[in-house]
């Protein structure tokens, strides 16, 4: 099982930091909207931001008093004479890329003014999701240490901590849609079936490609919302199918991917520590498991606790 790496030097605990996050495309402000899976979609005055056609600039502005507070905190971590810097780290598993913005040193001279960090992406560059977080790192090491003193973080570029919240921008889809597909199957076939097609639950997206519930619209018990042209709320039967499907999904991961993988997923404390990609099958499972306090001691316990999931 992969374990979280603990650096051999003191680091900041995840600190809350008040920053102003804003998004722009070709000079226009974009408005964020929080989605139910914790990610954010963007739009410009009601027109959705389209990753294929529109550029994206992510800006983080940090106030001078926040910076001063941060610098004071850093004295507990850094050797005397060393200096920290901050930068925006980003990753987009769906785009197969990750990186970091130009850094800004936490120098006394630049603490009078708010500072701004930016990430810029061209149209057609990002797909699926893009996550970003503010990191603090060692900008310049101490020239000379006290006698007998050693600092294993006295290395340029050492990560010292994450500041503030982890943000995930959704470039495609809405992130909250459960993959249910009406299928015109055989009248005598099953009312619903599951396709579990992921090859790597930690990285494959939780979408119709990796996992889907097929509802047989020719079955006599098929809930009306799948056969009607009108938009209707989910019926109690569909909700029950979804709950059973979630339990089956967890059991599939336990048997196909192994109990170690499942334990890694369920024991993940926060998304910033997660060993799975945002929007992945594992992310969905983590969300269901923690949000609903599921009991996975036995398959029967799991089915019962999944039956209580609020939809």
């Amino acid at each position, binding site marked *: 099982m992969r374990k979280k790496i603990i650096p051999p030097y003191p680091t900041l605990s995840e600190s809350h930091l008040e920053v102003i996050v804003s998004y722009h495309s070709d000079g226009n402000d974009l408005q964020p909207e929080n989605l139910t899976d914790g990610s954010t979609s963007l739009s410009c005055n009601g027109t959705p931001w389209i990753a294929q056609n529109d550029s994206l600039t992510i800006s983080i502005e940090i106030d001078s008093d926040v910076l001063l507070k941060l610098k004071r905190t850093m004295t507990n971590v850094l050797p005397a004479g060393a200096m920290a810097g901050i930068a925006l780290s980003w990753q*987009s598993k769906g*785009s197969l*890329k*990750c990186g970091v913005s130009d*850094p800004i040193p936490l120098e006394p001279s630049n603490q009078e003014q708010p500072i701004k960090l930016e990430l810029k992406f061209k149209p*057609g*560059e990002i797909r699926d999701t893009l996550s970003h977080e503010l990191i603090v*790192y060692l900008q310049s090491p101490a020239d000379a240490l006290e006698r007998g003193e050693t600092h294993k973080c006295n290395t340029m*570029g050492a990560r010292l901590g994450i500041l503030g919240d982890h943000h995930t921008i959704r470039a495609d889809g809405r992130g909250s849609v459960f993959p249910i597909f009406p299928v015109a199957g055989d009248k005598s076939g099953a009312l619903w079936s599951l396709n579990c097609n992921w090859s790597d639950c930690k990285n494959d997206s939780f979408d119709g490609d990796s996992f889907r519930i097929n509802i047989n619209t020719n079955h006599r018990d098929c809930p009306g919302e799948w056969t009607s042209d009108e938009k209707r709320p989910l019926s109690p039967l569909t909700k029950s199918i979804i709950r059973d499907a979630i339990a089956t999904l967890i059991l599939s991961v336990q048997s196909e991917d192994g109990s170690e993988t499942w334990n890694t997923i369920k024991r993940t404390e926060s998304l910033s520590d997660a060993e799975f*990609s945002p929007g992945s099958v594992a992310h969905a499972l983590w969300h269901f498991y923690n949000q609903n306090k599921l009991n996975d001691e036995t398959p029967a316990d799991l089915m019962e606790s999944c039956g209580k999931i609020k939809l």
Partner: protein
Amino acid sequence: MSYRTLDKISAKSIITSFESGAECLVEPSSLVASEQQLRKHFSERFYRPTGPEIPADEDLKLGLTLYSDWLSLDEEIDPRMAADDGFWRNLTCRVLPDYVLRRWPEKPNAEGILKWNVDRYYNKPQRNWLKIIWWMCHLSWQGDKKSTEEALSKLGNDAISQIVERTGQGGYRVNLYREIIAKATSDAYPNQASAEAALRRAMKLNTMRTQTTIPEFHADGLLGYVASLFPEEA
């Protein structure tokens, strides 16, 4: 740039039908213009319609042609498409399945039944044949086709595949990978065995170091960081 994507279930259905005896034929009219053009390039390069097998050492030359010409970045495809598994699935399953079969022929399973190597078509995105050889060139690009070919020819397919197959937690640091490959294939490592060993060591060290440090912020920049991954040279 009018390529389509293909979902995993449809891809599975296509390959299962071939596997169960349907002739592996692609009807050109079922393809869009850009897909037809790509198929034409393949038919000209591998002019025999069926067999013989496409040898493994063709991967490098084909990858370079795909990357710098037929599916060139920003001209033929954009970064979103290059990262989209559905795009590659469409190429291997709907557009070029017969050529994939010539590179990765069917093999009998334990019961003696011939099975297609589905990982190379749709099952494992990290093992999709065309995706791997395109990304192999993207991550190894040394500024031009000739230099990239020289660098890659010092490394075996397995060594490169391992890099492509391991996207890491958040994706590739493309410039970093290119510098690592440049260093591993430099004159300091005169033969394939030493270049591959140096690359493997550097990649392991990089995986470990990136947990605690940011390569771009190394004292001597990215090049300095990469040099530190090859301590035997110091």
